[in-house]
């Protein structure tokens, strides 16, 4: 009976057309021609941007530290290849706005020469703290797309005595197959990364969860994990958004992460398979995170591929390599088609978060012709977070943002299921992102006006105090004067 209630279940979600076949059966391309210039943004992670420690004109080697991590939640940035620094300035960011952010521009010399990397014979002799330190120094962040610094997560896992490490191999977004390919080709290295993470967190068991539409990856991972009883490889149902960390945690452990808590607080930590691979490279080979596997796919791509690209490679270079037909592109998306953001042009760099670049044709896109909501409630039934997107959107449309917040706006994970399913083509996620931004802006404005009011009040009080002081001084002066005059008069009388 108890197990009935504890039974893990999946809530909501959609079964989107996968469209992974174009890239899932081709090996990862590792001989991508080195671009002439690499544009390396200083913020490729959640938290504070990194601070550059090189100067324009410096010669750097591949893997050399370019900018160091600032503060608790931040990550350093390393040179993706050898060459010279030609600029440190603002360049467009891979974001829908393409607003400029601080970026290091590296002109490659074509040698791709590594810095001398430390040689570690047995990393399991290192202390757990040392492992997270090295992971942090290698600039590793969550490569599933969240880009939260991995070292911070490892530390939290250790501090909270996490018992289960979940490795997210769901890759539930359509089109993307970079994790699938890595699991097929680099299973041993990934499993090694998982063992290192376990060691770093002093945790004892890991579960690698792979959606059942990737049987080859499952087999490869199972074979690789076979010698290690602490690591279990399981298949999970294929249903977007299975890779949402909290959905996966509930499915695997049956536990739900309370709102406002980190998963480590309920004894679970979740990392992506690509992150595990990066940890392996950082600890075993001493190589920082300077490249990642990117899926380039979509209807406008003549040669869809998974490519290992140096970070900072422009999307336009990738598109040339994959023979993208620019006239067919209706939208460029970074990430998957469900949660990814559209990009205004291709002169933007790939970053640590770039799991895929999609060049979609008009026929692949959802119709944008908006019709009135017919309250069909399909958005309610597909929402994995248990929200009512239609009510939230209605309130946002009427500018009742606080009502939208009350009914769960902040619990929205922007997974895109509601937008995907809506028969009226209402861009619900767009509404929610707008509203969240607007709420934040309003709170900021209110905070600012409160601060202003406080300053004005303080100034008024100060002025009043000064005026009182002056009045008191004036009175004292008058009194002194009167006294003086009186004394003078008395003297005159006596003389």
């Amino acid at each position: 009976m108890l197990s009935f209630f504890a039974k893990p279940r999946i809530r909501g979600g959609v079964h989107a057309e996968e469209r992974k076949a174009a890239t899932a059966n081709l090996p990862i391309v590792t001989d991508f021609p080195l671009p002439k210039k690499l544009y390396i943004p200083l913020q490729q992670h959640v938290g504070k941007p990194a601070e550059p420690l090189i100067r324009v004109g410096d010669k750097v080697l591949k893997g050399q530290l370019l900018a160091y991590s600032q503060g608790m939640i931040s990550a350093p940035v390393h040179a993706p290849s050898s060459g010279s620094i030609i600029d440190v300035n603002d360049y467009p960011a891979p974001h829908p706005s393409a607003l400029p952010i601080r970026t290091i521009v590296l002109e490659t010399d074509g040698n791709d020469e590594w810095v001398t990397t430390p040689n570690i014979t047995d990393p399991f002799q290192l202390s757990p703290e040392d492992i997270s330190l090295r992971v942090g120094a290698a600039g590793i962040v969550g490569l599933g797309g969240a880009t939260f610094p991995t070292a911070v997560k490892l530390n939290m896992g250790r501090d909270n005595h996490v018992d289960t490490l979940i490795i997210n191999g769901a890759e539930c977004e359509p089109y993307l197959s970079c994790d699938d390919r890595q699991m097929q080709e680099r299973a041993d290295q990934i499993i090694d990364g998982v063992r290192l993470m376990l060691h770093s967190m002093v945790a004892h068991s890991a579960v690698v969860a792979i959606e059942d539409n990737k049987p080859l990856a499952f087999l490869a991972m199972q074979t690789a994990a076979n010698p290690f009883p602490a690591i279990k490889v399981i298949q999970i149902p294929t249903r977007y958004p299975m890779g949402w960390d909290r959905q996966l945690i509930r499915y695997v452990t049956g536990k739900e992460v309370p709102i406002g808590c980190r998963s480590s607080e309920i004894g679970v930590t979740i990392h992506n398979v690509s992150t595990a691979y990066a940890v392996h490279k950082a600890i075993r080979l001493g190589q920082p995170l300077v490249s990642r596997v990117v899926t380039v796919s979509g209807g406008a791509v003549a040669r869809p591929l998974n490519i290992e690209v140096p970070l900072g490679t422009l999307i336009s270079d990738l598109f040339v390599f994959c023979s993208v037909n620019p006239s067919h592109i209706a939208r460029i998306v970074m990430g998957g088609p469900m949660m990814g953001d559209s990009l205004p042009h291709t002169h933007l760099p790939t970053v640590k978060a770039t799991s895929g670049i999609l060049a979609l044709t008009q026929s692949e896109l959802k119709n944008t012709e908006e019709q009135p909501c017919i309250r069909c409630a399909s958005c309610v039934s597909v929402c994995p977070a248990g929200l009512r997107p239609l009510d939230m959107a209605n309130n946002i449309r009427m500018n009742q943002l606080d009502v939208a917040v009350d009914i769960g706006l902040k619990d929205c994970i922007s997974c895109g299921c509601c937008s995907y399913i809506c028969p009226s083509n209402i861009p619900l996620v767009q509404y929610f992102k707008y509203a969240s931004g607007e709420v934040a802006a309003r709170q900021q404005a209110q905070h600012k006006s409160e601060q202003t009011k406080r300053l004005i009040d303080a100034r008024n009080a100060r002025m009043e105090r000064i005026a009182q002081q002056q009045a008191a001084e004036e009175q004292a002066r008058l009194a002194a004067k009167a006294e003086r005059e009186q004394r003078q008069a008395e003297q005159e009388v006596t003389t």
Partner: protein
Amino acid sequence: MITHLKPSSGAHIGTPVTVGHIMGQVMLALTPATAFGLYVFGWPALNLFVITVLSALFFEAVCLKLAGRIAKPVLMDGSAVLTGWLLAMTLPPWAPWWIGVVGSGIAMILGKQVYGGLGQNLFNPAMLARVALLISFPIEMTTWANVSPLFFSDSPSISDSWRITFAGLTNIDAVTGATTLGFIKTEFSQNHLLPDILKDYSEILNFIGWTRGSLGETSTLFLALGGIWLIRQGIIQWHIPVSLLLTVAVLSGIFHTVDSQHYASPLLHLNSGAMMCVAFFIATDYVTSPNTPAGQLVFGAGCGLLIFVIRTWGAYPEGSGFAILLMNSATPLIDYYIRPRIYGRDRKGKPIEINKS
């Protein structure tokens, strides 16, 4: 290179299902029952059907014009046709032309467009119109034509049908009669008992729809088949039809078991009046029913309860129109109280507690 950007957020892909597609599927599901109804009641029924649907489109277009909107894309979404269609199905098959026109006018103007059009209305437009017609024109709305199928010698010809539709019936008593539910109600008022009243009642003919009744509501068989198909297509969910029919069946079952002289059997209830049409096609209207499965169960049960109560103790033989409208008005309340639980929160919206064990 600047490409299309909006919307910048996902999902960039989506299901090809559109509003028009959904309306089309519902119409497809209605087609067998409608075709059967048109066959059973002949040319006058076809006249009324066409008039009702066309006037629904006309009134929708007029309202859109008044609102300064471009009518064509809205008319193409199929919702006006569907409303007219559903309304026509609930009308007495030989009702005069103006019943269809006035009904469509009420449905489209008062039932839908005054609220702001598709998706905004509180009440099901077709049911609102039907109930308004029933109260305003009780004679026309309770004149039930005999079964008189197309191409039978006794049935009205095309020219007869125009006279019936546009000039009215002349020999009313010869060609009309009472529905099963209406007959039971009048007989009860004369202190007759059920076994006596129902001695000529044929379950199988009622099941197929070979009986007096509204244009498209008589055939339990075809309506249920269409409804089940809609559920299988994922257009409607099972919750409302199942809870509605189950509630009626359970309630009538209890009363029938206790006193079979005065209370009709569950089979008779499910097999008569607007039951199937309402359960599968009217109560499941997205706009006027709750959003959550639990809310839909409550809504369906409420409809079932009211239908049973009105049929059994009310002044009208059939109560489904009233039941739907009453439950429509409760929908916002149901949606307010019955909400899905948000991930990581309890039912009250507080973060769930961590179980330290």
